Structure formats: structure tokens, C-alpha cells
């Protein structure tokens, strides 16, 4: 004998369907519905740079100059809100969403033209060691955290790159060799084309007068024909520069400085968020 179905029994599937529809809609709608059941994750993500990727002053300024501003939003706010939303990564299929495949889910934006963060990660010691993007960028309090950390989070850039240098004689010349090694699991800088790491070598004579000022930019460069060139610092191996010091300049003091910049433009352009990654002083005999 079958039990008579209650109103709740009869309404159950409809309620579930309604809830699923609601989740699907809200996941693609800035994550507001997601927060009802995932408040901790939503609150953490709200603090991330990705959540406000389309409203930062740097982005809005760049976008105002863009030839095709709509292209920017494909990554900065696919759903049209303040930034990336839950559904942009987790998908808009039926809830529960399948686990995300790393790094493929990140590559959609972090391998956009002018960025090789994920591609360089695939060729890194970090990838060979089995690390995933989230192992560095989505951890806090000992576990996975939706407060994605990036270069702007501050602590990721602490001790992120190291300079080594030596001088040597070759005939009547003195050559400075400088190496840069970083510990990011991908090319440095990651992120898009405006970011750069600058190496500056400056030299002063005995009287403190500047006699040398050389600068190198590591990032994405464009040539005059408009082609992009990847000049980022690769992961897992150092890069070295050899610089002959001008013999007549009487250089007695060298300053070597490595700076991470978020703003495009030359090294002298103000960038309030710039971070000095490493700096060393060498006294010449």
C-alpha cells in the first residue's frame, strides 16, 4: 500500500529545482546567492583583487585608453559587475559545481595575450614539484582560502627575488655581473603587460657624482611594429647581465636595485605601489 504523498513530498522536487535555478542564476550574478550557503568563501573572495578587477583606478584609467574596451571585461568582469564572480570560474552548470581543474581554469585569463603566467608555470620547478596555483595564491590560515593573494597582497613579494653580483677584471676593463633569481612559480612579473621588474645599476664617483645609470625592464615589451616580446624573468633559473663599467668614470660606489612596478611607464613614473625587491651597495677598491 502506498503512503499518500504529502504536500511537502509533492512540492519537494519543485523546491529543489527552484533552489538550483536560483543558485545558477546567482552564481553568474556576482555571487550574491552563493554567499547564502558559502558565507566564509564569499567574504574571503570579496576581499580579493579579482572581486574588484573592473573598478580599480589603474584598470579604469587603462580601459579609458583602450582601443576596444569590451575586450578588457572578458577577464576583468565577464558577468558585467565589479569584477570576477563565482560563476566565472565555477561555471554556470547545475549545482554542485564540479571541482575546478587547475591551472586550466586560471589560464583563460592568466594566459591572455600579453600574459604568460600559466604557460610559464607549466615549465617551472613548482609545476614539476606538483604544486598548483592555489597552493600559493589561495592559502591562508593553513587551508584553502578564496582571498586570492597576488603581488599586490604584499607578503608574496617579500623576499620574492634576490640579487647577486660580482665585479671582475678582464684586461684593463672592469665588468659587473648581476644575477636575478626569483622564487615565483611562474614568470615574474605575472599578470598583464603593464607590470614590470626593473633592474637599475647606478654608479657614483668619489665625490658622490652620478657616473652611471643603466636600467633594464623585465616584462612584456612591444617593438615599433607593435609585436609583443616576452622579456619576463623565467621561473626556476637565474638571469644574468654583464655590464662593462666605463673605465674613465672613476666609479667608486655601485648601487644595484630591483623594483617591482605595477604601473606601466618608465622607472621614474610614480608608482605608489612599487616594491623594492632587493638592493645592494658595492664599494669598489
Amino acid at each position, binding site marked *: 500500500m502506498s503512503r499518500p504523498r504529502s504536500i511537502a513530498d509533492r512540492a519537494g522536487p519543485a523546491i529543489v529545482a527552484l533552489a538550483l535555478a536560483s543558485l545558477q542564476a546567482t552564481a553568474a550574478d556576482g555571487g550574491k546567492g552563493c554567499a547564502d550557503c558559502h558565507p566564509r568563501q564569499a567574504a574571503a573572495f570579496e576581499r580579493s583583487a579579482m572581486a574588484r578587477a573592473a573598478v580599480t583606478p589603474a584598470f579604469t584609467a*587603462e*580601459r579609458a*585608453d*583602450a*582601443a*576596444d*574596451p569590451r*575586450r*578588457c571585461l572578458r577577464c576583468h568582469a565577464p558577468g558585467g559587475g565589479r569584477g570576477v564572480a563565482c560563476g566565472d570560474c565555477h561555471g554556470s552548470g547545475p549545482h554542485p559545481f564540479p571541482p575546478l581543474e587547475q591551472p586550466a581554469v586560471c589560464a583563460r585569463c592568466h594566459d591572455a*595575450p*600579453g*600574459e604568460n603566467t600559466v604557460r610559464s608555470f607549466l615549465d617551472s*620547478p613548482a609545476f614539476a614539484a606538483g604544486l598548483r596555483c592555489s597552493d600559493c595564491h589561495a592559502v591562508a590560515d593553513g587551508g584553502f582560502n578564496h582571498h586570492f593573494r597576488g603581488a599586490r597582497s604584499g607578503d608574496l613579494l617579500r623576499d620574492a627575488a*634576490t*640579487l*647577486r*653580483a*660580482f*665585479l*671582475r*677584471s*678582464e684586461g684593463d676593463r*672592469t*665588468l659587473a*655581473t648581476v*644575477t636575478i*633569481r626569483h*622564487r615565483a612559480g611562474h614568470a615574474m612579473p605575472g599578470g*598583464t*603587460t*603593464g607590470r*614590470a621588474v626593473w633592474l637599475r645599476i647606478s654608479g657614483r664617483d668619489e665625490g658622490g657624482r652620478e657616473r652611471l645609470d643603466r*636600467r*633594464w*625592464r*623585465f*616584462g*612584456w*615589451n*612591444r*617593438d*615599433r611594429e*607593435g609585436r*609583443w*616580446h616576452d*622579456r619576463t624573468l623565467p621561473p*626556476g*633559473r*637565474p*638571469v*644574468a*647581465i*654583464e655590464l662593462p663599467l666605463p673605465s674613465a668614470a672613476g666609479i667608486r660606489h655601485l648601487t644595484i636595485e630591483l623594483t617591482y612596478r605595477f604601473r*606601466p*611607464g*618608465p622607472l621614474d613614473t610614480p608608482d605608489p605601489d612599487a616594491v623594492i625587491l632587493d638592493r*645592494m651597495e*658595492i664599494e*669598489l*677598491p
Partner: protein
Amino acid sequence: MRPLLLLVASVLLSAILLAEPGWPQIAPRQLSRLLHEPVPPLLLDIRGRGAYLAGTLPQALNAGTDPAGFLPDGRGGDVVLISDDSVERERLAAWIRRLTNAHHRVFILQGGVAAWRAAGLPLVQAEQNYVRPGTVPFIIPRGLCEGDEPAQEYR
């Protein structure tokens, strides 16, 4: 057969010449593993420009041949000297003194470059260890979304 014998003889000769009691040495395989560490040792090739350009270890830097003209950055750390039987024992000792005085922990590549090669490990062309950014005029991009608008030009 003859090239193989020459290689074996070269490795043995290098091992004998570079094996000074009290000089810490590092085997090629061990060094190869260390190069993948987050903070690998600094590799200084002291064989001279010609030998260095002909082929050296990955990440090795040309330190020249004159230890008296070598000025380290003062930060110490581990250094491995890349040598071979062309480097006299006295010069090698001078290198070790120079670097030890600058607070480096110094190792010699056991058997030199010949042993590295004999272990089946790769040599690289020296220019692969250097970058030359900025040698071509380039434009500093304003960002990915700049489209085709010119940004600032930098030389």
C-alpha cells in the same frame, strides 16, 4: 674507442689535479640536483673566457681567471668553482682564499668540466646564461588593453 679513452684519462687527470686534501668537492650529479633547489650555489667558471664561451655548466657565470681582480658582493653563500686541469693548483688555492675571505663556502666541481660531461650532464653555450633586455628599442606598454595606441618609447 680512442675518444672515450681520452675522455676517461681527462676525467682522471682532472680528478687528481683538483683533489687537494682539505678542499671540499662536489660531485657532478650532486651539483646537478642542487641547481634545482630554491637557493642553489653560485657557479663560477674560472677557466677563462675562451673555455667559458665554448661550453659551460647551466647557470655558470664567467668569473675570469684572476682571483685578485674578483670582487664579490659580500653576501656570502655557497660557491662552486668550475675548473679543469688548465687551472693551476696555486691559482685554485688563491680563488678559494679570495672567496673564503668574502664569507663564501667554497666547493670545487669534482673532476671539473670533463667529469660533468662524462656524467652525461649538459653543457650550455655561455650566452644562454645571460639576458640582454633593452638592447633593442622597445615601447613600454600601457597595458594589455591599450589596443594599438603607442605608449612610451624607451631605449
